[in-house]
């Protein structure tokens, strides 16, 4: 029997986010979505921030929701930058961060959101 306890050194953080535009007819594809995130990081942290490696693991075009992966040390920066973004291409928009976790498995279910809709 062997046991490894890993505390506080998660290599990656995962965020479940969705992008909302004030104008509901706007839809973006995955490349534009990535550019929106890059612009958010750029406006808050400059060129260095924009260069931080962020992976879009899953993207749904209709709902404009995605699962992002970022290094643990940059998780707080990304979350802050996404929260403070209010315009893209002169269109008002906002990021909604639904779930954040150092474990990708934890994003597979959310007892808070699911129960709200089914029951």
């Amino acid at each position, binding site marked *: 029997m062997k046991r490894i306890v890993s505390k506080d050194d*998660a290599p990656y953080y995962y965020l479940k986010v969705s992008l909302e535009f004030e104008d509901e007819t706007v839809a973006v594809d995955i490349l534009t979505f990535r550019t929106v995130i890059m612009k958010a990081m750029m406006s808050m942290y400059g060129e260095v921030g924009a260069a931080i490696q962020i992976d*879009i*693991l*899953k993207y749904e075009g209709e709902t404009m929701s995605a*699962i992002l992966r970022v290094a643990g040390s940059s998780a707080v920066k990304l979350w802050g930058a996404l929260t403070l973004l209010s315009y893209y291409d002169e269109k008002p928009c906002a990021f909604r961060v639904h779930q954040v976790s150092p474990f*990708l498995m934890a994003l597979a279910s959310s007892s808070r959101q699911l129960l709200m809709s089914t*029951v």
Partner: protein
Amino acid sequence: RMSEVRFSKLSVQTCVCITKYIALLTTCSDVMSLTLQLDLRPPRSKLVMEKSNFADEKSRHRKNVEEHHFNHMVEVFIPGCAELPPSVQTEFDMPDDYYLIKDVPLTEFINKDFIENFVKKGSLYMLSHHTHIDKHNVYAVLPTGHLILSVHKDTYEELGLVGQPSQFNRKVKRKFVVEVDLTQDIFVPGKKNYERVKKGFERTELKADFLLSWKPEGTGQLAGSILSYFHGRYECARHSQVPQVSRHTDLLLPVVTSSQLGDSDDGDWCSARECYEWLGAVSCGISCNEAPEHYISRFCCPDPSEMTPVAVRHSITGFVAPGKVLRIQDSLRSYMTDNKTTSPWVALTVHGFADSPVSWARREHGFHHGGENLYTFLFFPDSTYWLFQAVGTNDICP
């Protein structure tokens, strides 16, 4: 004239005050700047990775499942199979309904008939619904017969019962945890302890919607007979677990060795952590066979990997009792020890409720930026298994 002042370890309120003060002062011709240095460390979390054998007498595979009372989703991932093996499929198909009872006052739980007929005669699982552990009062009844209340400071003082302040965020005592043992012999009407609890509940008039699941001991009673206790007086609804199935073809699997949890020097196997991340990707429905362009993502199946022609993932979501998880675990074990199996391993994952007041046994659980308390088993054909237990910031290491 130039002067510089430095502050450190400021609370948010102090920062706001200083910012407002400086905004007022910059109306004059002086130049002022305020630099904030942020603590950008990510929130804390814990992941326990354990490797053991079913034959080992100290193996905690049963204890781990039994003590995790409130389960929201149970999923099984079997590579090498297009359909679930029959023994596993029967376990998933067995009906396992739960109930939602609205507006139940806490005085119902100390009712003598309720305790004698349901709490003491089986395993009762109850969890308050639509209550967030970081914002509202949360109540739960464990199968051990404990009633756990996670309440605000004001409610705690009004209740007048003995409890402990929450183990998380100790400096600001906002939440308190009260435990009432309903099965104690001295917990009967007329005794001091009972009357005190009763008066506290009547004075505060606490009530909530509850998710309920009851497994009677033995075969004497039906699981649905608890409904007749609440029916007529409270609004009851019956719900069944929601199943979901997804199948994969030509999927890349990470290669793992059951005896090695850590990294391989020669790149012969994937580490347990990489395998866990990959399993999470499968659960979230992320396709990770071919690596997309670097601008979008650099995530792909960890190296070394092997191709499997088929794989199936089956999940049920709702309010699942540990007994069902134990039966699924046993059926998966028998499938893996069967000689005809084509799977290198199978994975069983159980997600807990984000707003449950306890994670395993009676360990306190909280919601900081996430309420994860989940575990994953990886069963190998040689009767060894891996167990991953993941908890968030406001949690005690399992």
